């Protein structure tokens, strides 16, 4: 927050707002993240003429358009940084090991879900690597990508990225798949067409119906925002949605230890994967 003044949030307001966010998105905010709500929401409060977070909480609870405001709120608090080819070893593992195994077992169609895709860098990275490996020609591969945040999904669907999204991306990949568009980079439409985006909340019981039967799920650096009961629900959803043999990729700092026993952990050298039991 550079130009607008920050409105301070009181302890009881923080607890109530974090409960509202938790109930609607299952995201847990540690007490040390209070500043984050202040920074991301102060401007919105000022737009609404509010001078305190209490005003805003009442707006979320009592305004006729509270559902719309909930979307605004969730869009503000669920923005997470990502970039192309992040934690690439897992993506390479999928390309070199998991998909070939599926194809060797006779499968001719593979369904992949990027379960919290943010602005699209993860599913597009998968599509780029699948294309590089020539796998789209060998099988019918479908990539689904969902996120709770409608604003980041809009960005994903535009396929326009700034340099911050290209940390560690080999220039060869960037030059081949992106063209300069002003001060941004536009993704090749052929890659964009490989990914189907839609809005979805991982805690929504209907989510498994929306995504259908899957072979591979990527859900990286997302579970860290959930508390244990929410993590358990999400993992249950993944277990239900994956066929056999189903593969789940989590972020490097995430674990299913004490969360679920319905996956078997395997170390592939460059990281961890979880196989459905």
């Amino acid at each position, binding site marked *: *927050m*550079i*130009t607008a003044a920050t409105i301070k949030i009181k*302890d*009881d307001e923080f*607890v*109530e707002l974090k*409960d509202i966010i938790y109930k609607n998105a299952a995201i847990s905010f*540690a*007490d*040390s*993240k209070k*500043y*984050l709500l202040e*920074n991301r929401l102060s401007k919105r409060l000022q737009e*609404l*003429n*509010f*001078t305190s977070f209490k*005003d805003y909480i*009442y*707006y979320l*609870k*009592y*305004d006729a358009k509270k559902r719309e405001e909930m979307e605004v709120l969730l869009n503000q608090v669920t*923005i997470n*940084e990502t970039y192309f080819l992040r934690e690439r070893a897992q993506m390479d593992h999928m390309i070199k090991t998991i998909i070939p195994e599926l194809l060797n077992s006779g499968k001719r169609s593979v369904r992949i879900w990027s379960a919290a895709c943010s602005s699209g860098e993860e599913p597009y990275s998968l599509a780029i690597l699948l294309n590089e490996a020539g796998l789209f020609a060998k099988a019918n591969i479908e990539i689904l990508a969902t996120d709770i945040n409608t604003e980041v999904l809009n960005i994903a669907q535009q396929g326009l990225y*700034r*340099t*911050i999204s290209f*940390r560690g991306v080999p220039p060869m990949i960037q030059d081949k798949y992106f063209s300069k568009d*002003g*001060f941004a980079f536009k993704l090749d439409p052929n890659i964009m067409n490989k990914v189907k985006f839609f809005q979805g909340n991982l805690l929504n019981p209907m989510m498994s119906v929306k995504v259908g039967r899957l072979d591979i799920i990527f859900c990286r650096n997302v579970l*860290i925002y959930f*508390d*244990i009961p929410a993590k358990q629900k999400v993992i249950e959803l993944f277990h239900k949605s994956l066929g056999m043999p189903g593969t789940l990729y989590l972020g490097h*700092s*995430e*674990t299913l*230890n*004490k969360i679920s026993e319905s996956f078997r952990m395997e170390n592939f050298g460059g990281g961890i994967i979880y196989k459905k039991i």
Partner: protein
Amino acid sequence: MSYKFTRYGDFLKIMVEQDAPFKDLEDAAREIVNLKDLKRISLDLKNCYYIQSKALAALIAMKKNSIKIGAEFIVSNVCDNVYQVMEMANLTSYFTIEEDFSSYTSDELMEKFFQPDYADRVSDFIAGSYSDEFRAKLLEILEMPEPELKFYAILTMGKAHDYSAEERIKKELDSDIPLIVKASVLVLGWFGDSGSKEKIYQVLETGNEEVAEAAAASISLLSDESDAERLGRLLSSHSKVIRIAAIQAMTLINDDTCFGLLKDALDKEQEDDVKAVLIRAVSSFNKAGVSDILIKGLDSKSIKIREASAGGLAKIKAKDKLEDIISRITDTDAWVGYFAVKACGEICSATEAERLMSSYDKVEENVKLAIVDALGKIPGDFSDFYMTILDNGNEDIRKEVLSSLLHDNKENAKEAAINLFANDSSWIVRYKALEILEQIRPEGFRDMLMARLTVDDSKYVKDKIQAVLEEI
């Protein structure tokens, strides 16, 4: 030994190496009791990407031993993985967890500019502990092609008042990347670089949303008597972004000319959302006639304008318009009513408070909440009224009643808080009751907390009870 004690006066930092055996941590915990004259002990886990659950017992021992020697114990730089282990052990609320950027190298800190959640705070930290090493790194970044890094590098130099970088930053005004231009515009404003003012006007007049607000802020910082007129001309620009930026700059300049021009613009402006911005701007001026403008705004057909006007009246505490404000409490737009009541809370006396109370049954829930809140701010004791609604079905009303009771009648607040803390079905109310009891500290408070800790089903209330128990 996989840990290192470093003492800075009465502050001790314990740095732990990656994969520290838990036995070493137990040793560190034992060493703490032999230390003297410490006020704060920080266990820095910056290098720990994972922690064995056995090691948590050593962390608990460290905290206990710190308390024994009268020092506060904090755990700093906890990565997500370690946080998760602590969470599983239900220890995140037991420990005070903080970030301590002083443990990072300058390269590690610059890398954090890539992380939106850290970038601002890291920038503040670097500016607050600015050194030649940091300066050299930031200058290096300015030669790199990464816009986000450059943005924070420029801002950090500005916050550190590094005037020696002024010429280098000026060059970035010509960047084709708005984010970098925005940082340069802001910093040159902070530096008071009047020589760049013309260039900053050009930036504002591009109408680019990403930079316009920054340009407005800097123009106001660099302004002289000629700027009000120039900005006034921009109020009739075809671009909404430019008009809003001009309004922002004039609000910050806040002189008589700006007020006159903004007032005139209110009559000419056609778009409701810009008009609402104008209303908010006008309410920032301490001038005669502002309350008349805001009262007039209450009759607008636009909800945005009505709400901005009511919000403005609450902000300026328009005593001269008390009757008009009270008459709006029952406005058909409940948010106009809400802001009107908020204004009443700032300007009413006990006499007018009666009128708020008599409106209570005629208004929407959010206005009811504002009434209870406002009564708590008005001098007087309205306990009798509060008692009639203390058993209201709406948890927010009960919560507001507790807050206002505390202002008006501490004894009644104590009784009500004890009762609601023990019996209310809503955690929101129990949490508020606990906050009030924490302030009042009634007799038997500790027992009350212990009893509730075992039966309360809300994590938030339990965490709060634990925090209070630790404090007392």
